[in-house]
C-alpha cells in the first residue's frame, strides 16, 4: 500500500496542466467534479462528459479507444466513480489498448454526496490495483514534480496507462458544460466522424 504522504495538489490546476497541450486528444470525463474540472479549462467538442452512468467512464474510454486506435484517449474520473466499476481495470488490461490513458482525480471523497470518505482514504491503492489488473504503466502522483513526469505518460507512453493523482478535497465552484446527452453525443461524433 502507498505510504501516507501530504496531499497538496489542486484539482483544477492539475486538470488545466494536463489539458494545456492536449492537441487532438479525445477526453472522457466521469460524473461530477472531473466533468466540471474539464469544463473549467474549456468546453471542447472532443470532450465527452458522463453526467451519469457511475462506474462507466473507463469502459466508455475503452470502447472509444478501440474504435479510434489512431487517437489518444484520456479518461479523467474520480476515485469513487473508478471504484464503482473497478473490475473494468482488468478488462482494460486484458485488451491492452495502447492509446488509452486513465487519470484519477483522487480526493479520497465522494464529492457529489457530501464529501464522504472513499476507500482510497482508507488504504486502497488504485494504482496498485491497476498494476494487479495487468497495467504495465502506473503511477501515483502527490506533487507538482511528479505531475510533470506523469503528464507525458498520459499522452505518449504506450497504454494502457494509469495515473492516480492525489488532490485536495477542497470544494470547487461548479462549472457546468452542456449536459443534454443527445447534444453531447451528436457534437462529439460530428466533430470526430464528420457525421452523427
Amino acid at each position, binding site marked *: *500500500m502507498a505510504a501516507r504522504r501530504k496531499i497538496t495538489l489542486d484539482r483544477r490546476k492539475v486538470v488545466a496542466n494536463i489539458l494545456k497541450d492536449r492537441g487532438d486528444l479525445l477526453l472522457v470525463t466521469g460524473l461530477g467534479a472531473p466533468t466540471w474540472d474539464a469544463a473549467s479549462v474549456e468546453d471542447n467538442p472532443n470532450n465527452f462528459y458522463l453526467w451519469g452512468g457511475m462506474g462507466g467512464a473507463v469502459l466508455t474510454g475503452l470502447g472509444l479507444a478501440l474504435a479510434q486506435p489512431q487517437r489518444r484517449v484520456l479518461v479523467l474520473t474520480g476515485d469513487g466513480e473508478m471504484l464503482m466499476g473497478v*473490475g473494468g481495470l482488468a478488462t482494460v*488490461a*486484458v485488451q491492452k489498448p495502447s492509446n488509452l490513458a486513465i487519470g484519477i482525480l483522487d480526493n479520497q471523497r465522494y464529492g457529489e454526496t457530501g464529501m464522504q470518505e472513499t476507500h482510497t482514504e*482508507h*488504504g*486502497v491503492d488504485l494504482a496498485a490495483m491497476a498494476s494487479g*489488473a495487468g497495467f504495465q504503466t502506473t503511477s501515483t502522483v502527490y506533487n507538482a514534480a511528479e505531475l510533470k513526469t506523469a503528464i507525458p505518460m498520459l499522452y505518449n507512453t504506450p497504454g494502457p496507462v494509469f495515473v492516480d493523482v492525489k488532490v485536495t478535497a477542497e470544494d470547487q465552484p461548479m462549472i457546468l458544460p452542456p449536459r443534454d446527452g443527445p447534444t453531447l453525443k451528436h457534437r462529439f461524433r460530428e466533430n470526430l466522424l464528420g457525421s452523427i
Partner: protein
Amino acid sequence: MATKSNTKYTLQRRKVVHRILEGRGDAAVVTGIGNAVHDVASANDDPKNMYLAGIMGGAAMVAFGVALAQPKRRILVITGDGELLAGIGSLATIGVEQPKNLSIIVIDNQAYGATGNQHTHTGRGVDLVGIAAASGFKKTALITTNAELQAELPRIHNKPGPYLAVVKVMSKSSARIDAPKDGTYVSRRFRAAVTGESA
C-alpha cells in the same frame, strides 16, 4: 486478440478444497457458483456451508456479512476466479473494513468452468493477489504446490485476516456432486447451524 496459453498447473481443485476443509473445525463456508459448490459439497455437506449456487460476484460480501455477525467464528470463502472478478470491488470494501475472521480462497483455473472454459482475465495477466494487496489485504498468498498449500493452512484457518489466497489449479472441471440447491433450505439450515437459532 489471441488468448495466451498458460503455465501448466498441477494441483487438482477438488483435492485442494478437501485439504483445506479437513481442518475447518467450526468454520462456516460460503461458496461461489459452479465448481466451487461441487468441490465443497464433495468434501462433506455440512450445515455450515452456504452454497451460492446461482449468483455471480456475491460470495465475498455474503461471507463478509456473516463475518461481522459471527466475529468469533472463522468464515471461509471458496470461490472461482470468474466469480470473484464479477464483484472485485468487494475486495476494496473488505480491505477497508478489515474483518479478522475472513479468509477468501480463490480456486483459479483461469477459465469460466461452468460455461465452456472460456479464459477469464486471470489467464491473461490479471493478478488477483496483487489486487487484494492493493485493496488492503495484509495477508495474501499465491499457492501453486502442495507444499505451499500446507504452509498456508494456519493462515487460512487461524491467523488474523482478512486473508486471500489464489490457488492455481488445472483447468479441468471435476465430477459434479450435487449440493442441496433449494436456497430457502440451505440458507435456513446454515443460519440455524451458525447462530443456534431457528429463522
